């Protein structure tokens, strides 16, 4: 039976998660690139959102969430045909149309997150083709494993709002693409600084607010679970931000806006998988852990390994998400203010399940996104010409300039 209160919250949560991508993530990323590439980033996020939406209706939703086996769902709900207008989503008090849309917004933001790895140099056609294949071959299966009744779910893995499904898949793929594409011209010494940190902060704030829909919405009800998910989400973000500020203050004497907002995102990504299972105290610890680990991983990837994962998708989302998935096994312990382990479960037992989840997701994302990238390379080519890269993608690929003053 449909509950109006829960439905009211989930419709709102859906709007909030869409808002995370459009315009939240688009502006967050857009502020970090050169002014000559701003529109290309916005365009990638916007077009990916549209492409995924249509694909979601055309079958992706059905493959991820409709019955099927341990590995993949079936095609029973292609185009939502056969789903009556007032159908109730199985196991919820929501109209299926709302559940369909809520899940769609997750499927939209995940490939959009990957944009951060290849900004300023990837062909638009390649972005479109890659994102579509990636949705079907990486996102959909992993979503089915974890949330669609697949093998990881059966095993009891805990990923409340997408540490595995969203952040780890995106993060790993980002690393693969960054390596295959190669660095931007001039990387690492001669790349231009973020052209509009103010825009990055504005987008980051929208991500934060929208994240309430992401995590608290994942409760699928408007009650205590949603309330606590919102609470731990916010606390983790705030804590990780302070961590990042403190580190920069100590290291450089100058805490930065870009750093602070990056810390917030790290804290949000880290708490995401845990947000339905842990308490406020744990949120502080997870925020500290996520903030610290992500901070140092940025340096490791960019400066130690010299991989131009341009906007640090792996270091922030991949690492943060995995950290959260692992720590969930610890802090879901009732003794630590969590919801407690399932009947007969234990911390060590849950920990190994969580690690299997991380390993499987990591491996699958790595291999499949590598293969997809190679295919796309063969079909459209991955990278724009050096001249286009110099002049900027906006004018060359989209015939526009972001600023015509």
């Amino acid at each position, binding site marked *: 039976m449909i509950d109006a209160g829960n439905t009211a919250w989930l419709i709102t949560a859906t709007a909030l998660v869409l808002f995370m991508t459009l315009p939240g993530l688009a502006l967050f990323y857009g502020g970090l690139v050169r002014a000559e590439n701003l529109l290309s980033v916005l365009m990638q996020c916007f077009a990916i959102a549209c492409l995924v939406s249509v694909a979601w209706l055309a079958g992706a939703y059905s493959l991820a969430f409709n019955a099927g086996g341990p590995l993949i769902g079936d095609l029973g709900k292609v185009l939502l045909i056969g789903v009556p207008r007032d159908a109730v989503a199985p196991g919820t008090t929501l109209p299926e149309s709302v559940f369909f849309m809520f899940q769609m917004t997750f499927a939209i933001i995940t490939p959009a997150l990957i944009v951060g790895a290849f900004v300023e140099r990837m062909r638009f056609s390649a972005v479109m083709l890659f994102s579509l294949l990636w949705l079907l071959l990486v996102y959909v299966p992993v979503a089915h494993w974890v949330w669609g009744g697949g093998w990881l779910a059966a095993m009891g893995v805990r990923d409340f709002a997408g540490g595995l499904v969203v952040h780890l898949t995106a993060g790993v793929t980002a690393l693969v693409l960054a390596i295959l594409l190669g660095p931007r011209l001039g990387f*690492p010494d001669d790349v*231009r*600084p*973020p052209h509009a*940190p103010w825009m990055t902060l504005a987008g980051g704030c929208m991500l934060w607010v929208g994240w309430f829909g992401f995590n608290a919405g994942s409760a699928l009800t408007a009650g205590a679970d949603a309330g606590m998910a919102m609470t731990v989400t916010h606390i983790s973000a705030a804590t990780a931000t302070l961590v990042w500020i403190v580190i*920069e203050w100590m*290291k*450089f004497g*100058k805490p*930065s806006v*870009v*750093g602070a907002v*990056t810390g917030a995102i790290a804290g949000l990504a880290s708490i995401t998988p845990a947000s339905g299972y842990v308490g406020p105290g744990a949120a502080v610890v997870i925020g500290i852990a996520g903030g610290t680990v992500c*901070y140092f991983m*940025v*340096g490791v990837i*960019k*400066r130690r390994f010299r991989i131009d994962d341009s906007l*640090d998708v792996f270091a922030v989302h991949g690492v943060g998400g995995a950290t959260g998935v692992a720590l969930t096994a610890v802090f879901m312990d009732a003794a630590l203010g969590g919801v407690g382990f399932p009947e007969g479960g234990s911390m060590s037992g849950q920990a190994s399940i969580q690690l299997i989840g991380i390993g499987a997701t990591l491996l699958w994302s790595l291999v499949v996104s590598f293969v997809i990238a190679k295919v796309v390379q063969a079909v459209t080519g991955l990278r724009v010409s050096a001249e286009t890269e110099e002049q900027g993608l906006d004018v060359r690929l989209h015939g526009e300039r972001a600023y015509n003053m």
Partner: protein
Amino acid sequence: MKYIIAVIQPHRLEAIREALAGIGVQGLTVSEVRGFGRQKGQTEIYRGAEYVMQYVPKVKLEIAVDDAIADAVVEAVGAAARTGRIGDGKVFVLDLEGAMRVRTGEMGADAL
């Protein structure tokens, strides 16, 4: 006539304009430029990566003046622009062969 070009610290602009008004300079043209020289730019740090700004924001003044007051103008600009810190800037003097006030078509010194 002389065509005087001065590259200065942005925050000295008002002081200089007042100084020039004092000695009868009626007009000038200002533009934002970036300077490279002994003074080094600020370092910006984004996500742990340092960006040394090679260039320092400066303001460029262009002042066309009658020969009679050219030296006084150079003096005045120098005095008003000086803070004693590296990066105070330069004043350059070029010869100006002709000038016209568009509105009236006046030529030469009358145009200034």
